[in-house]
């Protein structure tokens, strides 16, 4: 009996974890160096450019990068925006590395960056989208009880790119990207059992590992 339960658990685990596919990519354009003690900040592209990187994805990335290394100092995104207000708000922040010189020419910004030892900005673009969905699920309740019956599924793609901007050279030194595709299903016989492909969370783990590998 115990053995059957273990098999069931393994089978369930296999279904839950086997629902997603991850694709990673890395590109280095220029030589660069990160010295221990220097600081990095993560920003996301503005919604003014149509970018929709989620608030919780940025929080996850900040949390992962802080937890997984002690080589560099990670300045939290919101703290950085407050320190440099109003130069990194959605309508004022540089949208690509070509716009960096305009900011770095301001002495007050340059000096603050030097004070905080900020060497790199990692600029994130991308989002999680639902590509297709199908199936039907219906639930009903009555005096004798209730329940659901049916089967529904949907495909999610979480695709994110991190561009690394060197603030000393005012150029993009490279970029890494992660794309995770997964199918989530909800079979329901009386009780619905959601088996979710955690594409956004997998993309967050994947992208943070890639950023760390990029600097090692």
């Amino acid at each position, binding site marked *: 009996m115990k053995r059957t339960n273990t098999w069931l658990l393994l089978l369930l685990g296999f279904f839950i974890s086997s629902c997603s596919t991850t694709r990673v990519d890395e590109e280095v354009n220029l030589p660069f160096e990160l010295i221990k003690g220097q600081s990095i900040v993560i920003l996301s592209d503005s919604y003014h450019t149509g970018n929709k990187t989620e*608030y919780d994805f940025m929080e996850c990335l900040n949390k992962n990068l802080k937890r997984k290394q002690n080589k560099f100092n990670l300045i939290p995104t919101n703290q950085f925006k407050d320190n440099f207000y109003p130069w990194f708000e959605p309508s004022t922040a540089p949208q690509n590395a070509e716009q960096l010189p305009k900011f770095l020419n301001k002495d007050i910004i340059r000096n603050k960056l030097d004070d905080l030892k900020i060497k790199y900005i990692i600029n994130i673009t991308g989002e999680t989208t639902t590509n297709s969905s199908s199936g039907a699920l219906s639930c009903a309740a009555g005096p004798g009880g209730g329940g659901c019956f049916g089967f529904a599924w949907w495909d999610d793609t979480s695709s994110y790119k991190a561009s690394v901007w060197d603030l000393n050279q005012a150029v993009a030194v490279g970029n890494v990207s992660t794309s995770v595709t997964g199918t989530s299903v909800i079979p329901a016989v009386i009780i619905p059992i959601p088996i979710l492909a955690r594409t956004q969370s997998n993309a967050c783990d994947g992208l943070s590992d890639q950023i760390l590998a990029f600097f090692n």
Partner: protein
Amino acid sequence: MKIISNHITLCIILLSLFGCSQSLIVITNIPSPLVEQLGDTKVLVKYDENIINYQFKSTNIEANESPWVIEFNDSHKKLFDQVLNSFFSELIQIETMDESLDDSEYIKINIKLDKFEFLTPSLASNDNYSVWLKYTIEVKNEKTEYSKKWVITGYGEQGTASLNQNKALINAIDLAIRDTGANLTIKIEKEMDFIIGTIN
């Protein structure tokens, strides 16, 4: 017995009338802008009543939307105080635009909130709350005869993916208020030499 039952009915009616409105309180913390202070110029500022204490009540909404009540309190005033204090040596709040100072260099500013508008995901048929703010700012320096009306706007957008609707709308309002501060900072930097008279 009849009186008690009437009271209960009245309470139910009142709850159904007022209990469904969505109330929000805006508390936006604006950081001090990273700008260089411009000399010894003082600023006399007159805030319109809706800058000092503004409450928004939605009207004319869709049938499936509950009315919104949004308390801004002094969030607008804090924003302008913060931005103006970072540029000028002293900020003095005045009641009318006729007030003046006998000594030193000063400019006068009159600030009004013209519009606050927002779209909910159900109205816009997308996943975002979008917020617009529009202000008219009258800037005068009697000494340099500088007198202009600026229209300063702010825009904020927040997706609802991982946030509840109140939190998403509050975030969108915070972003719009911060955006106003950013646009005002850029405008002051651009016009400052003309305002204080280094360029005529």
